[in-house]
């Protein structure tokens, strides 16, 4: 159960699973590819250059991902940044579970891993990374979490997919791909480290609620 709970908490950053509970899906999953593995890699490269452009270099950059897939993307992004600039760029993981505004709406969920680089984030440029930007509630929680850890000079937001339907006044600074979605659909970012393949797909019918974990 611990493993399962961790696994489903891992999904919590994927906001796309949010609406899956609204209809009891009976039809099989209908997936449309959005990005394949080489697209995804090119998108990460472009975002890394955008980050360097806006931050004017890689000094004082800290890349923090929201578990689970945001963290993996953050590590990849940091590797690209340090490769381009030739300086080490620290990356880490920021769990936002305890800062969510829907904690009381569900049974307590397992926590993700938080791992802040040793030098901290005070005065640095923090690039927050998540896989899918949807309601904006996860990002709001992340901003609160950052506030408890330190005082960065700047916080930027980078996401692989922006699927619209924002419920809060939040926007991303760096977007891999804007995707028009309906509320009943969901966007799934799969990464080789845990899903065995790099791809982004649009899912129309959710066949298995367990896959989405029923988490926001």
């Amino acid at each position, binding site marked *: *159960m611990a493993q399962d709970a961790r696994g489903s908490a891992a999904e919590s950053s994927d906001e796309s699973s949010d609406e899956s*509970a609204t209809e009891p899906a009976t039809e099989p999953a209908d997936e449309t590819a959005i990005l394949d593995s080489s697209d995804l890699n090119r998108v990460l490269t472009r975002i890394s250059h955008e980050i360097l452009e806006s931050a004017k270099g890689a000094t004082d950059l800290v890349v923090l991902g929201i578990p689970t897939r945001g963290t993996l993307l953050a590590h990849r992004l940091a590797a690209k940044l340090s490769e381009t600039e030739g300086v080490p760029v620290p990356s880490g993981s920021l769990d936002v579970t305890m800062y969510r505004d829907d*904690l009381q709406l*569900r049974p307590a969920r*397992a*926590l993700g891993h938080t791992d802040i680089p040793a030098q901290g984030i005070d005065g640095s440029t923090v690039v927050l990374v998540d896989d899918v930007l949807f309601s904006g509630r996860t990002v709001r929680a992340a901003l609160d979490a950052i506030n408890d850890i330190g005082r960065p000079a700047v916080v930027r937001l980078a996401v692989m997919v922006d699927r619209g339907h924002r419920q809060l006044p939040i926007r991303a600074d760096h977007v891999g791909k804007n995707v028009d979605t309906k509320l009943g659909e969901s966007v799934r970012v799969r990464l080789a480290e845990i899903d065995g393949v790099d791809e982004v797909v649009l899912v129309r019918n959710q066949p298995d609620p367990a896959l989405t974990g029923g988490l926001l």
Partner: protein
Amino acid sequence: MKHLLNAHDLSHEEAVLILDTAAEMETLTDRSVKKLPALRGRTVVNLFFEDSTRTRISFEAAAKRLSADVINFAAKGSSVSKGESLKDTALTLQAMGADAIVIRHSASGAPQQLASSGWVDGSVINAGDGRHQHPTQALLDAYTMRKHLRNNTGDLEGVKVTIIGDVLHSRVARSNVQLLHTLGADVTLVAPPTLLPVGVQTWPATVSYDLDESLPGSDVVMCLRVQRERMNEAFFPTEREFSLRYGFDSERLARLSDDVVVMHPGPMNRGLEIGDAVADSPQSVIVEQVANGVTVRMAVLYLLLGGGPADEGTPR
């Protein structure tokens, strides 16, 4: 899981989940703001009918670090000393809107009574009842062992734990034996026959009367406090004889590996069940146990109170 009453109520998965959650909570101790918002607006009542220093403070610190409001209730100086019953006290707390009640009581089964009576709606957490159970102590002991021996992941499969001393009066021993067994550790209890409870043969542990025979190969040595306040008759001839035969002194420590973990739930009787030098030795993690108590209790409070009701479908 709504209440935490007994260590044996925890499945292997639940126990590991609590320890994993505690490991995440521990990262908080390095932060400048030692506070998480998870229990904002929740009220935790510490209902202590029996004296306690570390357990009460530990629960209070844990609840406050999760942003809960904490009400401390000590039986001394309350209406309990005027003869108020547990039921009436519980109804009063319910009327005040307690989301969780942390209870310590000298009567075994008091937390069970509180949880099953319908007097209160909130979660009940057993912080020690009589000679019966002290589940959060067992969890913090398991967490401390896992940190030192298993790199703070997984369970305690194959860890050899020797628990010495007053098993008869010890709720810590009962809870530890059950939880350590669930987590896969091998437990040996060492005590004089007079300080072992009836039916100890049915516990999932090896029982021995000879300390020097049992010690070799131990990964963890846990000394239990000789509970004089619960002793109304003679359980051993003299303290000197007890400490010679069952006291964990420097000489016995020296015969073990340098990596052995020495534990004590506190408060200690130095020189009786544990040698003065042993308590202060590098192998002793007794002070760390107290620190781990806060993180483990944060994990328990978060997992019991951090979410909403479980059975309302999957709310949007």
